[in-house]
């Protein structure tokens, strides 16, 4: 069994036994290639009452290499309107790119994105949304991101 599979099995065990943090739910994990989790921002925020779905895709180098994470955009779900989230669901977050660390996990990524949404004051798309979306690769990991206004 590959390292990535064993690691994901352990994460799944933890989720099953201990549950997920408030506002985060496992929607489906039918194999060790793609998982879906839902994220809600609780409390008084601009996303009150909205529920989003995150799609995780893992390669066989996980957790050494980052998972490909994006918001699901389909009949049921949309991407949140946020300065770091493109309308196709791609997320501009450093921990999903150059700042990924193998000690991070699926749940910790969800928590980070949850807090990224929670700290948002104003709902708006990234300024280059339309240009990016029309040329974006299918997999957000293939985009070379420039992390500008962090920290």
């Amino acid at each position: 069994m590959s390292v990535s599979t064993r690691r994901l099995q352990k994460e799944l065990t933890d989720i099953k036994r201990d549950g997920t943090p408030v506002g985060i739910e496992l929607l489906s994990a039918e194999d060790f290639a793609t998982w879906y989790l839902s994220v809600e921002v609780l409390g008084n925020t601009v996303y009150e009452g909205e529920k989003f779905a995150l799609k995780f895709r893992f390669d066989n180098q996980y957790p050494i290499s980052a998972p490909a994470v994006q918001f699901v955009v389909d009949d049921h779900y949309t991407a949140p309107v946020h300065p770091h989230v493109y309308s196709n669901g791609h997320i501009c977050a450093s921990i999903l790119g150059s700042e990924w660390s193998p000690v991070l996990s699926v749940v910790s990524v969800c928590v980070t994105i949850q807090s990224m949404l929670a700290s948002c004051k104003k709902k708006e798309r990234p300024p280059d949304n339309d240009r990016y979306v029309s040329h974006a690769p299918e997999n957000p990991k293939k985009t070379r991101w420039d992390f500008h206004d962090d920290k």
Partner: protein
Amino acid sequence: MASMLDRLLASDISDPTDFPDAATAPGLRAFDDAVRCTICREFYDAPVTLTCGHCFCSACIRSALPEQQTCPTCRKPASEVHIRKDVAMETAVQAWKNARPLILRLASEEAARKAQPPQPPHARHDSSHSERTGNKRRRLQSPVIVSEDEVIVVPSSPAPSGSSISDSLPDTVLCPVCQKQVPSQKINAHLDSNCKRFLAEGSTSGSGPAAESSKSKQKQRWNQLFSGGGTGSGAPPRSKDKDKDKDREKGKGKARATPDTDDEPEHLPKVAYDIHPQKRIAEMLAEWDLPTHGDKAALTRRHKKWIVLYNANVDRAPVHRRTLDQLRGDLRKAEDAEQKTRKETVDDPVAYQKANKAAFAKLTEAARPKKAVPATAIPAVQTQAEDHGGQTTDSAKTGASLVTAEDVIDVDSEGS
């Protein structure tokens, strides 16, 4: 949903959550977590530390550092030269692995006891074997009380081993202390060994047999070491090694000057694969009797993995070190496992085509060139050229179709 999860979790994996929560068994989960690598979440295998003090499996951190030269936990700058083995942690992990089954069982008994409404304490006193039951109070309160009849079977004096009398006794008895099945004529020796030895075969996960088998394995490994670096195919012949040593000696001439430290194997140096032709990389693999099939990328991947496995093995305590043959087996297993997740094999192409007819039709449709998409806008975020084979202008046109094509492939692999 639950059944789906169970399917994925079918295989038995150990996890800190095996233990009851902190309210029932304070510190046990935390302890089990503390002796696990934060990268792979397994018990530390060849634990090493970085200058910041964070600990990882040698193989894990050696795989992670080439990606990013920082500590995965605290992000302080780190590099492979900072790696130091953590001998104390290795000892602790080994001890915990041996102790874990017993602790786990005691902890779950404790959890079961707490879950039950408190029972009125039993007034019975079984003085017949009082000196053995140090934790008597717990045993009496515990819901899994051994009936006294069973305990009484324990012979009061050691039966002479191999005597014909012992044959008439029941084969196994329940040990009054650890409550596992023990061959009846061995019960005293079992108790004398603190319930470690002489567990009956098939009794639940005893640490005894495991410890003994690991001991005999260690013996084997020592024998292999002493018989001149492995049997035949073990280590590469010394003469072959010499050529390589020339490369290795650069910058560490002094260390090599003292041949006394010969027993301690050295780490393999990193290789700049880009400057070597494919043939040279194949040679480097052949020096270690490793397979040399595949393209340059595959050879490079294999050699990189080998260096990680080899260097991690050097970081193990000598008693836990694996032989080169075992390491080759590890490499093969790792490659197989990665292959499995990389590609699915199609046994019957005709049946496969039939089964996926719709998907293929969709792919064909998606691959047809689309008109009417102006390729004028400048890409806002540059896409990596190598991923598209340099067709930056084409990606604008076929971007949409690529999406569907890849999606369909994903769906296929999930379905199998």
